[in-house]
């Protein structure tokens, strides 16, 4: 039988994959996709928690699902603004690489 722990395990792997993508990849678009994977991992565990933590009437705790709804909305807005910044950077510098962003010292 599938338990809550199994869902959390998958979500944890997804979160780590996203985090590793952010740390290791050098292309801004891929870094951005990896960030979205991290948010998806959080959403997956929220829905799993809300399904398995039932209240006394046996109904799922739907607060978790409402939160997921908010996270998805915010993530979509973040993608819109983030990709706009990346496009603006490409127009100015003809690059989407992290290494090329070095006019300020790190």
């Amino acid at each position: 039988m599938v338990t809550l722990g199994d869902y959390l395990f998958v979500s944890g792997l997804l979160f780590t994959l996203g985090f590793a993508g952010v740390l290791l990849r050098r292309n801004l678009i891929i870094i951005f996709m990896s960030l979205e994977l991290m948010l998806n991992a959080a959403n997956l565990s929220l829905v799993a928690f809300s399904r398995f933590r039932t209240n006394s009437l046996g109904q799922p705790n739907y607060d978790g699902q409402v939160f997921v709804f908010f996270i998805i909305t915010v993530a979509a807005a973040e993608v819109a603004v983030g990709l706009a910044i990346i496009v603006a950077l490409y127009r100015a510098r003809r690059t989407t690489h992290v290494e090329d962003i070095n006019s300020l010292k790190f």
Partner: protein
Amino acid sequence: MIPAPFLEIAVLTWGLILLMVDAFAGKTDRRGVAIAGILGLLVVLAASFFLTPPTPAAASGFWSFYTADPLAIFFKRFALVTTILVLVMAIDYAPAIRMGVPAANPHAGLGEFFTLPIFTCVGLMWMASAIDFVMIFVSLELVTMSFYVLVSFTRRNPATLEAGVKYLILSALSTGFLVYGITWIFGVTGETNLTQIGTVLATQEIDKIPLLFGIALVLVALGFKIAAVPFQIWVPDVYQGAPTPVTAFLSVGSKAAGFVVLLRVLTPFLMLPQVGRLLVGVAALTLIYGNFAALPQSNLKRLLAYSSIAHAGYLLIGVVTFSGAAVAYYLVAYLLMTLLCFAVLVVVGNSGGSDQIEDFAGLAKRSPFLAFAMLIGMISLAGVPFTAGFLGKFFIFDAAIRQHQTMLVVIGVITVGCGFYYYLKVVRAMYWLTPPADSQPVPLSALSRLTMTLLIAAIFVLGVYPQPILNALDQPAARATISMFR
């Protein structure tokens, strides 16, 4: 008498109206939008002194997300004052915006540059009142989203765009951590409301390990917002690259909101001793890193970035010792002196100078008033007696001594010594070095002169008479909040 939520609604409506006006204003001067924004925020600030007292019983539905306790009201006023001062700076900064935004209309982008801070202000005010993780998340993201746009606003300048990209990636990363942390806390307790989480933790047997994992992730995310070591890596570059008024807004508004959320979030979790030990370590590291890394800086904006990290360290001492009043006073002092420095920086930077400290050489001979304003800002940041900055540090150290945090006090006193060196370096450039031969006096608008005079006066008045700030939080409900920390 006005119910507290109307404050945000008023600011929000005013911002939307100004945005519409801007859309149909054609080629007229956009500075009127900023003036109207400042006036509107002043009205709301005045209205915040005529609020209906909150009804204590109602903690369900709407009021389970929103609180109007004195801490919240105090930081709503804080957000309003910060935004007003940032808008004053933004008016002075308008020529740089015109250069930085590629468009045919010379006024393009200005209206947005003046209205987005108003929306950010709504987010900051909501954050001050948020007592539910959903509300904290959503208002934090509103603030962050506006800052994404504001930081990369002058996109002709490559350094600004790069600062924007860095801020974008690292903020989005911290959002990921925040959400995942909240998820675990929700999973363990089944609640997102901070009060109910506190009740669950006090009454039920809870698995400590997943809870600690969750709160650690949330603290990582808040560490990004308040610029605590080791999550400060974005600060120097973003502060240096962003438009100067935005840097000022980031370093005061964003940081203060981060500390309010930190105070609120920590309340239910303080029974876990690991959290306290973690915070002591972070505070010590932040103090040491911020102050020592500021020593060799030659760019004033970058210097102020490291100084902002250092001040986050002093504020964290206040958080560790759970003295809400000391943190609030320190934040007010920090607001006054930081915004004063940035206001001078905007004016001087506009008149052809850059942000390098050597460009301030001999400023005292060119523009004695501006040099004096910067001098007051710097000595207050350093913590010279009779300024607000000194009393702020005094209250923080006093609280730390009472809580027997000797290690933090020692580190704090040593780093204050470092602070004297790098702040007085700027003063030396202004008063002892000779100006370049072709230098002109820096033009200063009447509005900015008035604002700077008020800030200087406030630094000295609060430096000898701190009671108004200390009393603002010392009301029955506030005492309840603070006693929860003790």
